[in-house]
């Protein structure tokens, strides 16, 4: 595998937005993640990041992203420092993000950051010499989620090009869907965006898809959109992103994915969700072969193992 790594150099590169990567580079990361699967499951062990330390700075709550980064580092023999709640740090005393990053830079070999302000990861990258990975910046980007989503679609549907992919839910505030729409257009997928009128995909994202040669369909009707879909990507209506609680109350519960809906779809449709879910997917769906979201969450481990190895120079 070492010759495989030589082909592209990711060492010390920041992972801020999926837009910073070419299709060739994304393919490279996904292919590497595929080789990481037995290591992610614990079936094989190679401590290729032994002696390396990852700073895990989570200024906002997280379950999957934080735990899968920690798992990825542990599975590769590295160590993790950091916090899951900034209330126990000097941020509480008014320390700037820039100074916190300077400290993490001094203590570790790479930094993972989730922060409530858009652009926080890009700012962090300015103050760090070690690579910075964006684990979500407010309503901005979440590139590792995007990579694991692409990894999952490619694995489950044997490709992305020309697949009918329906994104449903909060397309306005949802950070994952903006990055994902760009990446799927890059791969030539057929896109349909389903949302309440007030949560439509921003025009910048639509234009971005058009510039990549994909004309997305936009509708409020999930019933129609689901009939030809190969992938149904569901997102939560995120209460915490709404400036106006009244607006949230008007749209929450707009779409519900249940057995009846999936009976009208292709037999091999897959249902994905970045999680956490609240009420948008009926738990009955969990038992069907359509439900891929837990497998999707696991895929975060091999993707993050691949990235950490590439950024810190670990070789299998």
């Amino acid at each position, binding site marked *: 595998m070492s010759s495989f790594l030589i082909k592209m150099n990711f060492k010390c590169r920041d992972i801020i937005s999926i837009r910073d990567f070419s299709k060739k580079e994304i393919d490279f990361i996904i292919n590497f993640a595929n080789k990481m699967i037995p290591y992610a499951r614990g079936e094989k062990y190679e401590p290729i990041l032994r002696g390396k330390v990852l700073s895990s700075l989570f200024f906002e709550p997280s379950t999957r992203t934080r735990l899968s980064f920690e798992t990825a580092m542990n599975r590769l023999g590295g160590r993790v420092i950091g916090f899951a709640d900034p209330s126990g740090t000097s941020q509480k005393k008014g320390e700037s993000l820039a100074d916190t990053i300077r400290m993490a830079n001094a203590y570790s070999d790479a930094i993972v950051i989730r922060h409530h302000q*858009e652009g926080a990861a890009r*700012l962090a990258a300015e103050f760090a010499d070690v690579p910075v990975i964006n684990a979500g*910046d407010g309503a901005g980007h979440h590139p590792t989620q995007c990579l694991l989503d692409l990894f999952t679609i490619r694995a489950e549907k044997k490709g992305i090009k020309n697949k009918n992919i329906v994104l449903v839910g909060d397309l306005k505030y949802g950070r994952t869907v903006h990055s994902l729409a760009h990446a799927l257009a890059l791969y030539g997928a057929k896109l349909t965006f389903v949302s309440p009128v007030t949560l439509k995909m921003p025009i910048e994202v639509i234009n971005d898809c058009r510039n990549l040669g994909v004309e997305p369909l936009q509708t409020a009707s999930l019933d129609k959109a689901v009939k030809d879909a190969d992938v149904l990507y569901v997102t939560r209506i995120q209460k915490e992103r709404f400036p106006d609680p009244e607006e949230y109350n008007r749209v929450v519960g707009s779409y519900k994915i249940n057995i009846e809906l999936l009976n009208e779809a292709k037999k091999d449709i897959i249902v994905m969700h970045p999680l956490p879910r609240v009420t948008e997917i009926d738990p009955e769906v969990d038992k069907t072969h359509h439900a891929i979201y837990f497998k999707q969450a696991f895929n975060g481990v091999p993707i993050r193992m691949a990235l950490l190895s590439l950024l810190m120079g670990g070789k299998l």
Partner: protein
Amino acid sequence: MKELKIPLIKNGSVIDHITAGNAVKVLHILGIPKGTSSVVSVAMNVKSKMGKKDIVKVENRELDPLEVDKIALIAPRATINIIRDYKVAKKHKVELPREIIGLVKCSNPTCVSNAKEPVKSRFIVVCKDPPKIKCYYCEREPEDIAERII
């Protein structure tokens, strides 16, 4: 004979073809008259072939064309003439630089550049005319650039 609204200057700089109504903002961007004792004349809503325009004349000071390029944010068709002994010695059409730093406030209240961090606002120019800029940090494109000038 054509009537001159503001007099010719012997030496200095003339910024011409400023979008009508924006002369005061242009002075603000250039930090004039702060830090200068030069005589500054402003003419607004002057008739021209292409409608109305504003003109700024700064006496006895040659403005650096690169510094003046910033005004293309709100006056993309402006020109700067350097005057020596009543004659135009140099003429330069403003052109937006690739990046605008510390001049425009991001319109996104939750952008990290609006937090108490030791960084200046930073925008990437995505279109020169009409001017369109994108925040380097949060990637939002402000629609009302003139209103966002710090």
